[in-house]
């Protein structure tokens, strides 16, 4: 007979998850004087163990080895980060503020009182904390040079991306663990700040339930791999387990189900990579992998962003087989790659099946059409840049305009919306202040709160909303805090 130990911790705030949302809200609250505990399912990663070797790093830094898949037409690979920093640990570091047209839509459709002016100090605070700045042409790498040449010849709108990096030397392996710690992911920025301010960070803790009593939060119960249970007793619980896992945790806890929207409204930003064989040496992995964008077609929901990696990454992404694959790989130094990202109209869902997330997502015709246009335009971009050959991610003989759903093999990196914010309890899981409808003291601060597809990388939106939540809970004005910081 074995006895399971239970450890109790008392705090004012329990934050579940240490990614883009959880780490930010934990640091701001701890620095604001609150007693904070963070429960993170993953581990703290030692950059000395980053080897830049794709299969090993996928297994180490990603949930399910980066092999999370959606079910639907077509199936979509959805890599998610795991550990302190969450997906900020393995993303490309691209930083966009929420586009004003998206904020206007949130006000119009979801009754949210967030606008460009009110969010500006939150963005400024996050950007300062993460050293956000524009990539320089010198660091942008050969991939960006190819795309820039094509865009300039076609007269398409383009630019260098802003990133959260400091002292970047263009290692080219953002997705496999930054070996220089230049990428300012939340595991090396906000989490150390939270610790310094007294927050307790518990890693390897899988949260089983958010605890409530009488319609109020009372804490959370987690379990360690050893079997030890941890009960955090706290009147405020902030769920930031990510867009895929937050709705499952809330459902297990009997929370957020009133509107019928929990686990629904999943948007993903599906994307596909296109390769080109150039005469010049590109050396795509020398420089920042995602350093440049083309937004000529943003109004149609299509954005092009750089993507690159070492040979192992290219080998598994290259849409060729057999001798053609080997021949293209032999010219690795001459390969360029860029991604087509779609601001999706499709919506999916997340449910639990035997405790495992079942992610359903079918691409609608409007998004298929976006891919058809995007792939055709991407080929045009590479041809304008002087490509010798363009390798579209489509079966032999299929043109972009003739592509069907079964011809597409997208990936997606930006899951959002499964606990969406809506001022009306009948339409959303949380309100405009990110508080769960129908219960007091439970909040959501991750991508699941974002009520619509953004059309741009979402980490800054998530972090700005988390900052806003923290200052709301502290009863302080983020604009004043930001002004003090600037003055200091």
């Amino acid at each position, binding site marked *: 007979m074995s006895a399971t130990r239970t450890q109790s911790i008392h705090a004012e705030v329990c934050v579940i998850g240490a990614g883009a949302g959880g780490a930010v809200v934990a640091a701001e609250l701890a620095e604001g004087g609150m007693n904070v505990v963070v429960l993170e399912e993953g581990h703290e990663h030692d*950059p*000395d*163990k*980053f*080897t*830049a*070797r*794709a*299969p*090993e790093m*996928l*297994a*180490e830094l*990603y949930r*399910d*080895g980066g*092999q*999370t*898949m959606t079910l639907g037409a077509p199936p979509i690979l959805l890599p998610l980060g795991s550990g302190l920093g969450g997906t900020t640990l393995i993303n490309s570091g691209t930083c966009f503020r929420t586009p004003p047209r998206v904020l206007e839509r949130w006000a119009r459709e979801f009754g949210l009182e967030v606008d460009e002016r009110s969010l500006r100090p939150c963005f400024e605070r996050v950007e300062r904390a993460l050293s956000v700045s524009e990539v320089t042409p010198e660091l942008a790498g050969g991939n960006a040079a190819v795309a820039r040449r094509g865009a300039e010849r076609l007269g398409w709108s383009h630019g260098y991306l802003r990133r959260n990096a400091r*002292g970047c*030397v263009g*290692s*080219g*392996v953002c997705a496999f663990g*930054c*070996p*220089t*710690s*230049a990428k300012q992911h939340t595991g*090396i920025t906000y989490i*150390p700040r939270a610790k310094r301010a007294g927050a307790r960070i518990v890693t390897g803790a899988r949260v089983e339930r958010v605890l409530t009593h009488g319609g109020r939060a009372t804490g959370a119960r987690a379990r360690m791999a050893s079997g030890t249970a941890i009960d955090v007793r706290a009147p405020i619980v902030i769920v930031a387990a990510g867009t895929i896992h937050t709705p499952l945790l809330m459902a297990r806890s009997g929370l957020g189900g009133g509107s019928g929207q929990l686990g629904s409204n999943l948007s993903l930003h599906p994307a596909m990579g296109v390769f080109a*064989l*150039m*005469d010049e*040496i590109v*050396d795509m*992995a020398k420089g920042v992998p995602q350093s440049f964008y083309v937004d000529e077609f943003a109004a149609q929901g299509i954005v092009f962003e750089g993507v690159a990696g*070492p*040979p*192992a990454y*290219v*080998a*598994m992404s290259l849409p060729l*087989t057999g001798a053609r*694959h080997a*021949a293209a*790989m*032999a*010219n*690795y*130094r*001459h390969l360029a790659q860029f991604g087509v990202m779609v601001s999706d109209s499709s919506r999916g869902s997340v449910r639990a099946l035997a405790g*495992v997330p079942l992610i359903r997502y079918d691409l609608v015709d409007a998004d298929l059409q976006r891919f058809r246009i995007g792939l055709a335009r991407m080929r045009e971009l590479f041809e304008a840049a002087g490509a*010798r050959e363009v390798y579209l991610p489509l079966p032999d003989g299929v043109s972009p305009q003739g592509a069907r759903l079964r011809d597409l093999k997208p990936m997606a990196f930006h899951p959002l919306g499964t606990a969406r914010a809506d001022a009306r309890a009948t339409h959303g899981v949380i309100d405009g202040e990110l508080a769960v409808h129908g219960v007091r003291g439970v909040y959501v601060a991750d991508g699941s709160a974002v009520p619509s597809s953004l059309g741009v990388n979402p980490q800054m939106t998530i972090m700005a909303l988390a900052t806003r939540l923290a200052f709301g809970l502290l009863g302080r004005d983020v604009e004043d805090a930001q002004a003090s910081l600037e003055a200091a």
Partner: protein
Amino acid sequence: MPNGSSSPACTSEGVPSGVRDPIDTFIASAPPLQRTGMRLLVALARRPRGAALLARVPATNQLAQIVLVLGHYDDPAVGCALGWDGAAVVARGRALRRAEGRP
């Protein structure tokens, strides 16, 4: 014009992997159903008769090939021959972190 022969030699040995078999580790980290399916596919793809069988089902064959090429091009010697010196990238990162007191 690309000719596949423009790769400089690497300046250092490859970074030793932290795991015994990176591909086995990669497959083992997949969700349970995918893990079982991938092990089966890769085992088939590594045998001549199995590969011939897989070739009849292109989508499945492609999945197996992705795992196999991932393993092949992860080999530091192969990467090096293609002009990517992963060991130098990692060594530079570690040196920078130590020299500048980065996390």
